[in-house]
């Protein structure tokens, strides 16, 4: 009971002090969603080897699953978040935001933010991510944690404390850069790869520039522009849309319409 009261108190304090981060927000403290809830996404370790443990990944996926009350988010989503965090820590802040923009999580409202905080508190209190997932009605096996998958790569010997830890890949940088747009074996669009292709099409890492009317805009070194016109002050009769401007080989101004 006392723990529940602590959670409520923490929630009320956060309500008073902060606004809801409706989408993933990168800060120097970490990747934030909801009311100042930091997701457990670690940055890459030495020699480009991911230090993201299976536990971190499972915790992040469990938190998001509980928060959104939907099927467990795919592992790829967490990999995209980790990539964004790595880029942020390397000083590639616009590139990091670009990766976040393409993750595609639904907007967070007060309820989602509260569930996210609850999930984090439960994990901190020692509840396993599997139990958490089960508690909201999903089968543990749906998570496919691969905790005991002997084929999953480990950090090789000679990497200090990281040696022998499970990793999600021997070299994430290489994995992401080698990917290209398209569909995976399950027919799902590979958004992380699309974002890398976008960077290539934009002539390198873009700058993040917010327009005077508040639209999020990425400007590539080659003058191409990727912009999200989502608020009524940012669009007219065409409704909310994504803009692709001055991309090589494309019409000068392409709109991707969104449902209002």
């Amino acid at each position: 009971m006392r723990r529940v009261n602590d959670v409520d108190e923490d929630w009320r304090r956060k309500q008073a002090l902060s606004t809801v981060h409706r989408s993933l927000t990168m800060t120097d403290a970490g990747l934030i969603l909801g009311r100042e809830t930091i997701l457990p996404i670690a940055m890459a370790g030495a020699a480009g080897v991911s230090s993201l443990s299976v536990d971190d990944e499972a915790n992040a996926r469990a938190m998001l699953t509980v928060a959104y009350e939907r099927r467990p988010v795919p592992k790829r989503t967490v990999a995209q978040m980790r990539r964004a965090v790595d880029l942020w820590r390397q000083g590639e802040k616009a590139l990091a935001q670009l990766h976040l923009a393409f993750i595609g999580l639904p907007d967070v409202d007060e309820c989602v933010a509260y569930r996210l905080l609850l999930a984090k508190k439960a994990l901190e209190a020692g509840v396993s991510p599997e139990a958490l997932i089960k508690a909201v009605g999903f089968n543990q096996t749906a998570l496919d944690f691969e905790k005991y998958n002997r084929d999953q790569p480990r950090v090789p010997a000679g990497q200090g404390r990281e040696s022998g830890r499970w990793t999600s890949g021997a070299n994430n940088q290489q994995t992401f850069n080698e990917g290209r747009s398209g569909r995976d074996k399950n027919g799902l669009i590979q958004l992380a790869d699309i974002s890398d292709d976008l960077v290539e099409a934009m002539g390198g890492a873009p700058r993040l520039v917010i327009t005077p009317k508040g639209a999020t805009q990425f400007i590539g070194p080659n003058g191409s522009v990727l912009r999200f016109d989502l608020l009524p002050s940012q669009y007219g009769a065409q409704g909310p849309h994504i803009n692709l401007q001055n991309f090589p080989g494309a019409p000068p101004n392409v709109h991707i319409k969104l449902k209002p």
Partner: protein
Amino acid sequence: MTPDFNLLERRAADFFEKRAFLQALKIYLHMADGDASLDAGYLGFRIGECYERLGDRHAAKFWYGRAVEENPTIEKYASARRRLQGVGIDDLLR
């Protein structure tokens, strides 16, 4: 019915390419109607280009200026506005 802006854009670009600047201008103005942001300045720039090709440098300067207002970091808009910096109305006031 919501207009297909990609289609409008292609038609306007075709007209512009064929030097039919007035027709292109009509389409860009139609697209801009009701969009206070001018598609983050893009339409302001295109309208300015049409006016400039039609010989109305004063109108072009105004629309380039609107493009810069809506998106100051796009160098293409800023340089177009700077290029017409000297266009004024002094000759009308003598």
